[in-house]
């Protein structure tokens, strides 16, 4: 299964005007694995994610992406919903853009909303939803197309810790119902160790992957996993790898 990765960055170098180049970044994502990307801000976590989505092209190197079109879902830092449209229309958008007939798209949108526990809020406008609910709609939108690869760019950072934990449990539940590969960008060490089967640490200097740590324990996490010594140890390993990847001054 891991022999042919679902998505892969090989020696990807990105240049922005007036800044040091990022990379070369090497990152492979296998089918149905959840990878957390951690690193200092500016380490190129979001850039790596956008390259995997095909939204950004590297100056050098190559990208392998899922073969079928529309098999990548993206969850942004904020919910990024269309404020003029209700939850159902927002969730149906990726389906409709990829040519699914409107009635079918709406039916599947309702299913996706039900899966994130918002089956009764299909006609709510984004402004009528709490931050956590809006993020669930955003998650439902990304999963409505039943993607093989889900990319999440610090999606829960703006939420309070209880809501955030709830959303991670939701993500694990959805994943076990229908597994997908996920790359989750975060700067929270504990969140990374809890949600992922593998944590990749990017160097603050140039965005190279400097550590690649498999996380112990099954997904979804058993109850009280956060108290488990194996989990605490994994958190510590990630924290030390991240500290080593930080610039000297820090």
């Amino acid at each position, binding site marked *: 299964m891991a022999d042919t990765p679902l998505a892969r960055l090989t020696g990807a170098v990105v240049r922005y005007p007036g800044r040091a180049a990022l990379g070369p970044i090497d990152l492979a994502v296998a089918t149905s694995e959840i990878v957390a990307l951690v690193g200092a801000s500016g380490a190129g976590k979001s850039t790596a994610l956008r390259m995997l*989505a*095909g*939204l950004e092209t590297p100056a050098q190197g190559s990208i392998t992406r899922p073969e079928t079109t529309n098999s990548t879902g*993206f969850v*942004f830092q904020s919910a990024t919903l*269309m404020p*003029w449209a209700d939850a159902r229309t927002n969730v149906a958008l990726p389906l409709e*853009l990829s040519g699914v007939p409107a009635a079918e798209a709406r039916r599947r949108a309702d299913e996706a909303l039900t899966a994130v526990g918002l089956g009764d809020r299909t006609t709510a406008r984004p402004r009528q939803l709490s931050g956590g609910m809006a993020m669930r709609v955003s998650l439902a939108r990304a999963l409505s197309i039943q993607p093989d690869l889900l990319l999440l760019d610090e999606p829960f950072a703006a939420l309070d810790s209880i809501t955030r934990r709830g959303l991670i449990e939701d993500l694990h539940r959805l994943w076990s119902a229908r597994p997908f590969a996920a790359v989750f960008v975060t700067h929270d060490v504990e969140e990374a160790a809890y949600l992922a089967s593998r944590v990749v640490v990017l160097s603050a200097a140039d965005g190279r992957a400097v550590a690649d740590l498999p996380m112990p324990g099954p997904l979804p996490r058993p109850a009280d996993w956060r108290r488990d010594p194996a989990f605490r140890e994994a958190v510590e390993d990630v924290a030390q790898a991240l500290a080593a990847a930080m610039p000297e001054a820090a």
Partner: protein
Amino acid sequence: MNRVLSALPGLILTALLLAIWEVACRALAVPVYFLPPPSAVAIALVENGPVLAASALQTFWMAFQALMVATVLGGGLAIAVSLSRPAEQAVAPLAVALQVTPVVAIAPLVLIWAGLDHADRAVIALAAAVAFFPIFSGVLTGLKSADPDLERLFDLHGATRLQRLTRLRLPSALPFALEGIRVAAGLSVVGAVVAEFVSGSGATQGLAWRLLEAGNRLRTAELLAALVCLSVLGLLLNAATTAIQRRVIASRA
């Protein structure tokens, strides 16, 4: 109740100013051709009611047609230009040139083109020229105001240009377009009045013509009565466009 209360200070100040004006005119015995008291203006307003109402309707109709023309042309051009960067770079300087050219300056030319028999067409064209820019720039700004992450989402799912326009950019542009139209509505009345002044014939029979005519005959009370009609017309237009704006914004929330 709140709206009545919030309008109260303005009404009190207006009443106070009118009272001072009335008393001052009588006390200082100001000649009526120079500055008639508000009571004389009120009488002129009532006596010339039907003529003023007809003229106000004419001015409103010309300004309204101009606003429609400006909305179609300004909005349409903004959409066309938003689809291509070179097109925007080509059109933007021309649009700015149109904006900074005083409409009075092109009025004689437009009158020649429209022909003196069709002075109303010239007035509509000139008022539309004044109203064009706020709509064009409002719509263009609005079309570019869409959330960049939503733009990325449309990229990710392979949206066509038309899908991106109708499902993302036009809805994002709507509040900007409405604000442009609100500003343009006021400007279209200004444009209509200025254009009517320049055309200088009675052919258009709008409020500006009433102003000119009353002024030429030193009937200052009638002049001020026409001015009051013009203010009321502007206020009504502003209230109407603001109400539309509020309703549309509220329906989207």
